[in-house]
């Protein structure tokens, strides 16, 4: 069964990666070794050419793409353009593309095993040329293109030979198996015929392509050394274009396979240097085994440029600083320096603690830092020798892009705490900065980080130095910036933490919360700030204050909670404290929240706690939150008048039961301040206690029991009380649990609550008792023991 996937991957540069391709996935999984986080203010795209992008510092193998995504398609566009030019006037671009790549429509997943139709057609046209007998394909294409034309014939015959080699050079069906490590192309006659065309053709375009095809065919043959010999013999006469460097990387790959690592790495470095399109491939393939290989490669370099190329690719591998130092000595104008310095800065940034929190020990909560503590921690992490190197290069100003070095130096000075000199270097860079959006943004961001860092204590005066930039970061960029590259999110979160810390030091908890709110907690455990009633009231006062200062306005705008959220929280708290009039008053100040409806009837009391069942059950009346509270209120009023005590007590019991975690009305408490989640253990302790406590419903059920007049009524109350007892037992059992794994080991899996005992002893003759047995397996287990 052949399941090889050829479509779209027709033109291939399997390059020399062939030998190490397995590894790219093995490492690419990254599983547990990915430490890279986006705590960066430094956008590498500002500084280096596009061809270096995958080589920027990244947690995966390649930045932005993770792994080599273009392995089979890297040169498709080049090849299309080349042939279109060659066949100009002879065949339409679409026709050329069809023969090169295949039908335009991407093959469906089911069709991926099928050979695209252009391939057999090329085969048939070749047969036509060979036998001079028309066939179906020649008749079809003869109407569209002049098959007799030399150039068309050359094109088809070239493709015919090229696609023979592809049968070994590509394969993308991962679930098929080849018993050999690498397939080889063993048809010496065919290879020779390719070489013969190279030798005889006088057309330079074709000659160049047959030359490449010869190297490629020999590369995939079982006598790879012949590829090297052919290359060495002919390379002098070949133009130094992309095809040349692709061929050179085949030669590098063969040397790698032959364990001639020094030669292989030397050649890869030259391809890296001269052929931007292959930077990803060569950076991945470059692979010195030990120091001796590396030094030998260096010794092979014929001039400073070649040596610099080796350091450039080595710098991707590791130790950017050393690479910059060496390249700068060899060739200060080398453009490789640009990408290396972005790696150096991004790496330095990874060390920075932007959180204003300090990890003390395992299992000890994070310690809050002061501004001063945070700065001294970060300044200690600055790499001194890298700093000195950048200073030197910036001062000399003799690189290809001097502004890069001025900006980098300025940024490092910010990190070092030398804000005045940072300003000077930013000024210096500004004068020679390219007029691109990204460069302008980058400079503004670095200046902002510097200005913000200058502030140790907030004053009216220094506040003014950051206001415009805060507006820019928090409000303008999210709306106006459409690109992907610019890294400003870190400055957003960092500046908020910074301001929060400043306000904390000032003794202003409200503003500290305004800027320090952590909104994106995974578990949504709500916001513990509001557990303290005093600051809650202060926050409300702040939010309604009419004449806020500008920074207060900025803060209030980014703060995710609004007045209505706090009122809602207060309404929930008051309800759980059974202060219903108070709760109603708060809920009335929550805009639309008060009208949101319960999913089930909150006054129903079921035998089983199944909120989904209650939600789908028929509900004659849908209760909104405010309806709910006012109904509770009127029942309480009636109860106070001793009116219909049994029914009102029972319904109140149900109402208060349903708004706990165990009931059908969890949406009542699930808010941004309380938190949300299907397990009570995702809530913070204060809230967990509130939503799992069943004392109030139990109290009402007790009242109902006392007022009950029939045995059926009593049985029902007893059972409801048992549910509350059950919940209390498990709350108590699991709330203080430290180790989940051990939770079941006490072997207790059944408890007979007092309610159960009473129900069995005194009410086994009721209908309700039979209902409970039918619905509640737990109780059934108890009685049938």
């Amino acid at each position, binding site marked *: 069964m052949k399941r090889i996937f050829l479509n779209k991957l027709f033109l291939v540069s399997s390059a020399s990666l062939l030998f190490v391709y*397995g590894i790219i996935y093995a490492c690419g999984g990254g*599983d547990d070794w990915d430490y890279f986080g986006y705590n960066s203010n430094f956008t590498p795209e500002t500084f280096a050419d596009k061809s270096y992008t995958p080589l920027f510092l990244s947690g995966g193998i390649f930045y932005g793409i993770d792994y080599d995504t273009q392995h089979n398609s890297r040169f498709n566009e080049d090849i299309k353009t080349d042939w279109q030019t060659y066949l100009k006037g002879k065949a339409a671009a679409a026709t050329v593309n069809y023969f090169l790549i295949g039908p335009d429509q991407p093959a469906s997943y089911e069709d991926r095993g099928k050979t695209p139709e252009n391939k057999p057609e090329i085969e048939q046209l070749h047969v036509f040329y060979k036998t001079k007998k028309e066939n179906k394909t020649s008749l079809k294409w003869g109407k569209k293109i002049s098959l007799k034309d030399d150039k068309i014939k050359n094109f088809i015959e070239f493709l015919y030979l090229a696609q023979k080699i592809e049968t070994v050079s590509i394969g993308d069906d991962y679930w098929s*198996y080849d018993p050999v490590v690498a397939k080889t192309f063993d048809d010496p006659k065919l290879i020779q015929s390719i070489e013969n065309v190279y030798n005889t053709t006088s057309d330079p375009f074709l000659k160049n392509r047959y030359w490449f095809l010869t190297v490629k065919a020999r590369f995939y043959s079982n006598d790879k050394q012949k590829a090297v010999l052919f290359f060495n013999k002919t390379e002098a006469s070949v133009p130094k274009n992309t095809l040349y460097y692709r061929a050179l990387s085949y030669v590098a790959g063969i040397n790698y396979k032959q364990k001639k690592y020094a030669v292989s790495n030397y050649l890869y470095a030259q391809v890296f240097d001269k052929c931007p399109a292959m930077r990803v491939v060569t950076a991945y393939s470059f692979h*010195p085994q030990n120091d001796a290989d590396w030094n030998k490669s260096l010794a092979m370099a014929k001039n400073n440029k070649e040596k610099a190329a080796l350091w450039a690719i080595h710098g991707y*591998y590791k130790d950017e600083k050393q690479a910059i130092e060496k390249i700068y000595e060899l060739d200060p104008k080398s453009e490789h320096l640009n990408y290396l310095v972005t790696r150096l800065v991004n790496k330095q940034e990874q060390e920075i603690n932007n959180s204003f929190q300090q990890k003390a020990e395992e299992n000890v909560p994070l310690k809050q830092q002061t501004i001063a503590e945070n700065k001294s921690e970060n300044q200690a992490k600055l790499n001194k020798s890298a700093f000195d190197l950048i200073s030197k290069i910036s001062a000399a100003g003799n690189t290809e892009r001097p502004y890069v070095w001025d900006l980098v130096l300025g940024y490092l000075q910010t990190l070092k705490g030398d804000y005045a000199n940072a300003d000077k270097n930013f000024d210096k860079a500004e004068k020679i900065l390219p007029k691109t959006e990204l460069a302008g943004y980058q400079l503004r961001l670095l200046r902002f980080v510097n200005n913000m860092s200058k502030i140790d204590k907030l004053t009216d005066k220094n506040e003014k130095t950051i206001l415009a930039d805060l507006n820019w970061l928090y409000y303008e960029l999210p709306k106006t910036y459409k690109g992907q590259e610019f890294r400003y999110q870190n400055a957003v979160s960092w500046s908020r933490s910074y301001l929060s810390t400043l306000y904390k030091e000032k003794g202003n908890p409200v503003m500290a919360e305004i800027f320090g709110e952590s909104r994106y907690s995974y578990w949504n455990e709500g916001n513990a700030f509001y557990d303290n009633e005093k600051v809650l009231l202060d926050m409300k006062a702040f939010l309604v204050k009419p004449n806020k200062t500008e920074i207060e306005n900025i803060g209030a705008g980014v703060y995710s909670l609004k007045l209505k959220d706090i009122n809602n929280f207060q309404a929930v708290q008051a309800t759980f404290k059974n202060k219903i009039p108070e709760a109603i008053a708060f809920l009335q100040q929550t805009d639309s929240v008060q009208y949101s409806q319960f999913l089930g009837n909150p006054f129903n009391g079921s035998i089983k706690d199944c909120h989904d069942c209650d939600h789908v059950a028929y509900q004659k009346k849908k209760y909104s939150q405010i309806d709910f509270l006012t109904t509770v209120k009127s029942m309480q009023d009636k109860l106070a008048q001793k009116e219909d005590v049994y029914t009102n007590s029972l319904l109140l019991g149900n109402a208060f039961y349903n708004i706990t975690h165990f009931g059908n009305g969890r949406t009542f408490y699930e808010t941004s301040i309380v938190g949300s989640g299907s397990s009570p253990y995702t809530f913070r302790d204060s809230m967990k206690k509130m939503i799992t406590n069943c004392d109030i419903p139990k109290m009402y059920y007790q009242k109902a029991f006392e007022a009950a007049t029939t045995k059926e009524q009593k049985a029902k109350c007893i059972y409801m009380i048992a549910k509350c007892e059950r919940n209390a037992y498990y709350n108590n059992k699991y709330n203080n649990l430290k180790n989940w794994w051990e939770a079941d080991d006490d072997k207790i899996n059944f408890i007979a609550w007092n309610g159960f005992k009473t129900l069995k002893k005194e009410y086994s003759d009721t209908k309700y008792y039979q209902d409970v047995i039918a619905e509640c397996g737990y109780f059934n287990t108890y009685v049938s023991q």
Partner: protein
Amino acid sequence: MKKNIIVGFVFFLLLSCSKKEAPVVSFYYWKTIFKLSETEKEVLKDNDVRKLYIRYFDIGLHPQNQEPIPISPIRFQENASRFTVVPVVFIKNKVLLKQNLDIDDLVEKTFRLIAEINKKNKMDCQEIQIDCDWTLSSKDNYLKFIEKFKKRSQKKLSATIRLHQVKYFKKTKIPNVDSGVLMYYNMGSIAPDSLNSVYDSKIAARYLKSLKNYPLPLDFALPVYSWGVHIRNQKVIGLRSKMNVNGLKNDKNFEQTSAVFFKAKHSNYKNGIFYEENDLLKIEAIRAEDLKQMGKELQENIVQQPKEIIFYDLDEFNLKNYEKNIFEQVISCF
């Protein structure tokens, strides 16, 4: 005559009672190309090894489309059919954590790839082993996979079992396989500290008592590998396989700073890996005494005799660290 038969019978009884059947030695083969060195062949012969557990492929996720794909399938450059070969498939946990995983499809593809590898290498197998460090969140998918794979393959199926899965089997559940292999290694966390993550008798002690309650028959896999934990700035940045203390002692680019720690004196390349100045390598290795201790403590805590002790992994580099008769010594503990 009659008497003789009785004597013979009694003798036979005595024999079968006094001599427990010792487990046999087998190995995991965990390289991507199957080719045995002379040393490896010798060890296999000396220990009369008949069965090899060969890693056929891993299953991971394609980095781009996140579909399950096999990674680095085995290639045979030497015939393995003189051994009873058990193909082992390592499934990365993240595959089973994938949303909407098509388990039937994965079962079919896995089974077919094993069959294809066997067919193309003219091999056959009676048993297949699945290796997966499944967790509570991937448990359901894993158990389903095993269930369906067993049905599809119609072969004996075994699975690797981690220590915590033995202790907490009520939570992690037991895959529906014919037997399990307890991986008696990788106990600790791979960390910059000075502890050995491969084997730690203190950690082992926390789990050993649970062995008696585990319902699945178990064989044991014991470690004979060593590796280097590559540490930079107190962070583990990678594992370097096939590394031992002696090798590093002879490397001028490194200096030994304690029994297990080596420091890079200056930036250098070693076996294709780049070490920055002051990087640390922590060697985690298993000594012969450790192996015997493992055998002893396992024996003390089992109810059912294992049929096999499988050593991980068969590689000349690992074998050189031990005396020739080490495997015999370890199985004699049982």
